[in-house]
């Protein structure tokens, strides 16, 4: 395998090259990473290439052929035929509040866990983190019933139930993602030196002030990283959306695309275009928050 071979290269080549310029030292790494990157992006590039070609042309010459025309018409067709804007908006209505609420609640718990030593700290962490690890299928049936039973005010859900409502999807996504965020945020907060809050304590600042004004701003990298991951996960959620939403027009974009698939299953070019459009928002979020992405993902303090 290429992987094994390049690892060998790396091991033998590295010591010899050590004192030379840093880039020459990394030739092996570069080759290996290039191969991986090409392999990893090829399927996506292939889909892009397909989406830029008219269906008639690929039907005639086959998919593996040089382009005669390249066109954005698949994208414009998918955009209008699948009513993508409408479903994008649904996704925004679900994803944005879910991310904000999850981060807000998780940072509260994380703050308590990181800054206080109560007897219940460990059980609390266990309850949150292991909830995140449960397979969603395990809880879906009772959850249906809860969603059909709970009555909520009409400004939250216009059918008066959590079932088939945006609020219901926001809640389940929040409940399911809290664990991971609590874990990451509490670890991150533990790395923030305590002196800052101690100084504030002397000034008589309340718990809320210490959390909201002092700790949270310092957690920005972690919040940004989590926001990126949460956006990806919630936006791409498929399972909750198909099981807890019964109205086709309330679906978020990723599950609504199944409708497009039902209508145009044989036109792969159009489908690829439609599916590529759905990737844009998560990629945008990633690009915007990228700088803080790795720095913020502290999974545990590992300093010495």
């Amino acid at each position, binding site marked *: 395998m290429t992987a094994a071979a390049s690892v060998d290269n790396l091991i033998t080549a590295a010591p010899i090259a050590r004192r030379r310029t840093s880039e020459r030292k990394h030739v092996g790494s570069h080759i290996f990473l290039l191969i991986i990157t090409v392999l990893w992006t090829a399927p996506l590039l292939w889909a892009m290439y397909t989406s830029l070609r008219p269906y008639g042309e690929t039907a005639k010459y086959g998919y593996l052929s040089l382009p005669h025309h390249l066109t954005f018409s698949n994208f414009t067709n998918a955009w209008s035929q699948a009513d993508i804007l409408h479903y994008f908006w649904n996704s925004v209505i679900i994803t944005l509040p879910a991310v904000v609420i999850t981060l807000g609640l998780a940072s509260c718990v994380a703050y308590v866990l990181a800054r206080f030593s109560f007897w219940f700290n460990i059980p609390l962490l266990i309850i949150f983190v292991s909830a995140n690890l449960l397979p969603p299928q395990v809880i879906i049936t009772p959850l*249906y019933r809860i*969603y*059909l039973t709970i009555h909520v005010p009409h400004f939250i859900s216009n*059918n008066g*139930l959590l*079932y*088939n409502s945006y609020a219901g999807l926001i809640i389940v996504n929040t409940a399911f993602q809290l664990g991971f965020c609590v874990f990451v945020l509490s670890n991150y907060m533990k790395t923030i030196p305590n002196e800052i809050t101690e100084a504030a304590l002397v000034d008589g600042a309340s718990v809320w002030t210490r959390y909201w004004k002092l700790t949270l701003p310092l957690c920005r990298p972690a919040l940004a990283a989590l926001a990126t991951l949460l956006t990806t996960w919630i936006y791409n959620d498929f399972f909750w959306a*198909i*099981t807890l939403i*019964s*109205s*086709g*027009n309330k679906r978020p974009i990723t*599950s609504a695309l*199944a*409708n497009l*698939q*039902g*209508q*145009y*299953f*044989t036109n792969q070019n159009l489908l690829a275009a439609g599916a590529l459009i759905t990737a844009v928002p998560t990629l945008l979020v990633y690009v915007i928050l990228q700088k803080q992405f790795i720095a913020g993902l502290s999974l545990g303090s590992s300093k010495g």
Partner: protein
Amino acid sequence: MSDSESGTPGAQSPLSRRSVLKGLAGAAGLAVVPGALLEACSSSKKTASPPSSAAPAATTSAAAAPTSSAAAAASSSAAVAPASSAAAGGGAATGTITFGSNYSDAVPKAAFAAMIGGFTSANPNAKVTINTVDHNTFQNNINNYLQGTPDDLFTWFAGFRMRFFASQGLATPIDDVWDKIGDNFSDAFKSAAKGDDGHYYFVPLYNYPWAVFYRKSVWAAKGYQVPTTWDAFVALQKQMQKDGLVPMAMGQKDGWPALGTFDIINMRLNGFQFHMDLMAHKVTWDDPKVLAVFKQWTEILPYQQAGANGRIWQDAAKTLLNKQAGMYLLGSFVAQQFTAAPDLADLAFFPYPAIDPANAQDAIDAPIDGFMMSKKVKNQAGATALLEYIGTAGAEALYGKTDPSDVAAATNADTSNYNPIQLASAALIKNSKDIAQFLDRDTNPDFADNTVAAMIQSFFNDPGAVASQLKALEGQAKTVFTS
């Protein structure tokens, strides 16, 4: 189904269906039986005292009454008239009617919209909101959908699937609708629209036959003849293979399409009654006669398109469209893939050849699709008016104009615009002695779509192990049909 329950849907269904379906012969849309004659023997009179839900609320009864009379008037005169605003209720229905639809494919979706358009243009005060959900998701979630916040009306299937929801109290009886539309349907459709309690729960829209489709031009070029016997059928497939064609297209990725092949071989080989007994699990799946069906199938398996388990039926249909395959056994909805007019004109079908002469070519699968009213209906007057409209020949013709692959259920539907496929479909249904709905509509649908479908997939993978596959299938059938 539990033992105590099996007295109701399981045990009765084959009997009632058999009588139902014999009568269905007249339902093919050729208007052989005058509506008035049917009314005389109509059982809808038996349910003259409708259940409480059938009585319209005081505020809406004024609106509902003229609607119904208009629809009735239209239905009696609509034998030839295409959908007109008169057939659509004359502007009496009001409010928003919500409609859950699984017609998510392009052609049926447009046809459905066209039919509903006929209603809304005649009823400017009514608004119909169509909630389209792709059909896999719709069927997977139907249970929760009906118990949760269902739409007023929803698309569904006749047979076991309809009667199950009726008996579970998840549907509203619509005897009042049938008082108005009863004349438009044959007895066969009438009994197919009734639940186990004898009340009406279903308005049929169309049915369609399962048969062997082919392209006339390909057959003419090669000089193929329609086979009526098994030997001729096998010889034909052998010849096709020699000629470089895939003799029989197949796409079994979704699990259900090949159930149609099982149905037809079973009915040809063992007869309709045996098939229905098997569906009711009165006969077990490890019965030697079931094994014989698969042995028969094994004989033609070498001529079936390879890799069926990885292909959706739409792609299999494409190989027929592209003249790479010689035949395809499927429902007439295969015509939806033939979007270009010349291609559609080139499409034809023949009924599956006879295997046991005793059964000849008597039975076919011809499932009925239609509509039900949910228990939690909000705008019952409006929904009733809409169902009354749909139960007219005019409305069904409007649907058929856009989706030319089905046969309208209404006896008096206009057939003058039928394409050759529709005419032949109507004739095939009319000439069939017994009509089944389809495996996943005649038996427990989840057993059919999960367990039987998976068994057929493993049969394709390893036809030699079919005996043990059937044993395992029966083991699971026992748990499903007794629990």
